[in-house]
């Protein structure tokens, strides 16, 4: 597959995620949209990894493997982030009974 297809697909997914972050007020959905963004990046990284693998002139068997490992670490981080994030959202919900981010504007100006 031409790499451009992957690039544009990922960018499109990423931007949908961004748009989600921008348009939604539910903290959980926003968080999900961020996960969507991360996944689009993962896809792109894997695609690039395969691109570099294919382009490796010397036939290095491991060429491009770092991209996929990076994706692995992104998943690791995302998992940690989600656990912390959901804990925070839950704590907030306990205190305010709301997950509306616009409800949170004590801190401003």
């Amino acid at each position: 597959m031409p790499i451009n297809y992957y690039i544009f697909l990922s960018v499109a997914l990423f931007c949908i995620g961004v748009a989600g972050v921008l348009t939604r007020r539910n903290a959980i959905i926003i968080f999900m949209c961020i996960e969507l963004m991360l996944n689009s990046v993962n896809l792109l990284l894997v695609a690039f990894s395969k691109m570099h693998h294919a382009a490796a002139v010397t036939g290095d068997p491991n060429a491009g493997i770092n991209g996929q490992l990076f994706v692995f670490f992104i998943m690791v981080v995302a998992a940690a982030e989600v656990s912390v994030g959901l804990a925070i959202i839950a704590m907030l919900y306990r205190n305010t009974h709301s997950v509306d981010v616009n409800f949170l504007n004590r801190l401003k100006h």
Partner: protein
Amino acid sequence: MTQFLFWFLSALALFSAIMVVISKNPVHSVLWLIVVFFTISGHYILLNAQFLAIVNLIVYAGAIMVLFLFVIMLMNLNAETEPQKNKWLKMAGVIGGGALLLVLVAALKHADTRNQLAQTGGGDIGLIHNLGIALFKEYVIPFEISSVLFLSAMVGAVVIGKKE
């Protein structure tokens, strides 16, 4: 076949992603997001990144999204409780996302990578064997260090979640 699958998965991914954003009901959003993860795993398989495909399903679709679902259910969020956003801000959000897409595409349109291919099918770097060797040899440091990350996430979750 690959071509077809690619377009199908892509279209489905985009559609599901849009649905994630526009679904009123948070539970639907979660479900659509799981669909997105599945399509992305499909892409991984097309790219012969089998390990990541599986991990993606287990970690993301399996663990993370279940966690999300759990929380949503726990809070009893549904379409009715979903806060409505100001129309203008919504519009601004869509325009913002669209504009970002536009500039990114504009910036990458002439990328010199446009003639390169991502190898589908072939190549075995995505296999668990190769990844495992690399992970525990060259990548042992980040691997170990990510344990700190998990530790802190764990401690954090406890600190935050514990009832006082």
